[in-house]
């Protein structure tokens, strides 16, 4: 009981923090935090797949692209308002993920990782191939379209005037909150147990009456739908898509974010939302401020590296990931889970 109360209190505290954040930060920071919310959604989705059903995907950037392009094409070519495209993006990406999950049943571990990476590599070329639909390399511009809520300036919400960036922030984090609760509801019961059983021992699970094909493809579909929502929100936030909005490296970045978050952190515990929050923040802020970080390190250790040189952010990103993995092999979420379970046990 005490543990429940503790968990609820933690969740409420984090939720309040998220709700009030735009009051304390600058307009641009709100935009960055909105992108953190976008990666949060994708990481929670990836955790359903990789953490729970044990299938590794290096192709989730492509599912984000499917969601992003669904939104962009509907807005730019079919006059659909941006908000309505979000569920459609989830549907399209979810169906694509479900269908991909069927052949994925025959593969596991490294082989599955390779095949999904194949999707990530080939998808940008596919987007360029169908230039008539996707705009090819020059992309689709969504800024200032009548379908864009607020036209990129400001949004009136219940008599409050929100700047575009604050609007994006609340939009992303509302959806992130809803999706997180949905994922929790899905995984806390039978489905979650079945997936974990399949991950730990497929044979034992099957003999206990779990249908592997159903649950594995379902996990793929749900996970891809989450990625689709993330991609859709990214398209709405940036208001521009081209194949480079969803580069090959995005898929790897997402997996790194999920690993830092803590693969398989049990949903509902403190670590299961703070973990993805940490993973998503790492993706957004480390990439944006890697060269500043290098400059800061240079003050202590003279490395004679040029912070403006291309490739520096990638190297710093890799280094930080190695350090995090060495210190917290279970990810940030895992560490927090261990800490909070010890704390709550003491309060029994």
């Amino acid at each position, binding site marked *: 009981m005490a543990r429940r109360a503790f968990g609820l209190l933690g969740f409420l505290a984090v939720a309040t923090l998220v709700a009030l954040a735009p009051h304390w930060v600058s307009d641009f920071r709100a935009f960055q935090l909105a992108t953190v919310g976008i990666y949060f959604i994708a990481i929670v989705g990836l955790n359903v797949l990789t953490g729970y059903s044990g299938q590794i995907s290096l192709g989730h950037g492509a599912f984000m692209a499917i969601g992003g392009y669904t939104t962009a094409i509907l807005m730019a070519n079919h006059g659909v308002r941006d908000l309505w495209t979000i569920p459609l993006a989830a549907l399209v990406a979810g169906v694509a993920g479900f269908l991909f999950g069927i052949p994925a049943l025959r593969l596991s571990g490294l082989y599955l990782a390779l095949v999904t990476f194949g999707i990530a590599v080939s998808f940008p070329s596919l987007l360029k191939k169908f230039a008539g639909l996707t705009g090819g390399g020059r992309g689709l511009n969504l*800024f*200032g379209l009548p379908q864009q809520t607020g036209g990129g300036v400001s949004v009136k919400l219940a008599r409050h005037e929100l700047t575009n960036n604050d609007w994006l922030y609340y939009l992303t984090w509302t959806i992130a909150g809803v999706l997180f609760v949905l994922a929790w509801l899905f995984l806390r019961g039978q489905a979650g147990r079945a997936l974990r059983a399949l991950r730990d021992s497929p044979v034992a699970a099957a003999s206990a009456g779990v249908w592997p094909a159903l649950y594995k493809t379902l996990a793929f579909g749900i996970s891809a739908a989450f990625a689709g929502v993330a991609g859709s929100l990214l398209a709405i936030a940036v208001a521009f898509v081209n194949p480079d909005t969803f580069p090959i490296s995005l898929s790897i970045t997402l997996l790194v974010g999920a690993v830092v978050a803590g693969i398989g952190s049990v949903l509902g515990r403190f670590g299961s939302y703070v973990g993805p929050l940490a993973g998503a923040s790492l993706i957004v802020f480390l990439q944006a401020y890697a060269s500043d970080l290098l400059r800061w390190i240079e003050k202590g250790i003279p490395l004679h590296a040029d912070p*403006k040189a291309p490739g520096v952010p990638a190297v710093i990103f890799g280094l930080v990931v190695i350090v995090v993995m060495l210190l917290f092999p279970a990810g940030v979420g895992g560490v927090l889970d261990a800490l909070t379970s010890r704390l709550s046990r003491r309060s029994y």
Partner: protein
Amino acid sequence: MRKLLLAGVLVAALAPTALGATRSDPGVDANSILIGGTAPLSGEASAGAGVARGAEAYFKWVNAHGGVNGRKIDYRYLDDGYDPSRTVQATRQLVQQDKVFAIFNTLGTANNLAIRSFLNQSKVPQLFSASGATTLGRDFGQYPYTMGYIPSYAAEGKIYGQYVVKTRPKAKIAVLYQDDDYGNDLLAGLRKGLGGRARQLVAKAGYDPTATDVASQVAQLKGSKADTFMIFAFGKFSLQAFFAMNKLGWRPKITIVNAVASASGLMALPPAKSTEGAISIVFTKDPANPAWAKDKGVKLFQTVMRRYYADGVKSGYAAAGASSAYTMVDALKKAGKDPTRASLVNAATHLNERGNPFLLPGILVKTTPRDRFPVSQLRLQRWHKGHWNIFGKLLVAKP
């Protein structure tokens, strides 16, 4: 206590007015003007980074000589790798976080078009874009804060068309073009210049700006038996085209290469057999050309570069950047003692600049609110033995 507090609030509220700071827009304070932009510092088109670095060098020179109306110009340019989606994010950061006064010299057609609605919505000037997209100068009704600098691509294409009609009326033309707004703009201009002879355009092959190679397109064009080859490409793609021509042993009677791909530094790289006799247009003084060695403008350019950007001493891209930086300084001076975004756009649409030291002699940088093509005069040049040689008289290049 309460009175003291009230007084404090009043002072705080009035202080900016007293300093005259409330009248200016973001990015301008008593000592500096912050402008921003993006350039491909990395990736496929990183040769174009010289345009930003050349402009930066000239601003530093101006700052060392007193700045603009007592303010130093702080030019902050971010890397976008020639990728429009990164241009969008970087520009947003410049406008919303760094609070730049204006966006200047952003390189690339797709890149400029991707940020145009955002900047006009935010009422931030997007000036002297390093792109010749015709729409940047033409569609000011919809986008009043946007303006290019170099001659429009449509005008450039038109001049090539007119040149071919005049010198080889029976020519059969094949075109390699970048399949985006930039390449299609040049192609449309070429058709206009050919006029009734547009049928002589016998083959065209486009490539995606994110492609890796254009050799197969060149082979396809060679197969068309054309005797005139036009390269409407950028950066490494134009190099690949020359290399492919050489490998295939294709020697068209006329080879035309568009201006942004014709820097001497690039032209010197492919085998001389393939580049010899190539034709292009020119509007800046090429610092790599010994013909300009004694020119006052080029001497100034080299002094500036030696001090602030040593790699740019012979770079045509740096010269292009310096020329637009010169005009930017001109516009900022004209924008008044306390420039606003509106006064800057007003100044940029009333330019009448004679003697930009980095442009060809005789070119007048002139704009009006209804004519927004700053540089619209140019000359033809021919590549011969490792150098460009200018020929013909000054031509008017309007789309």
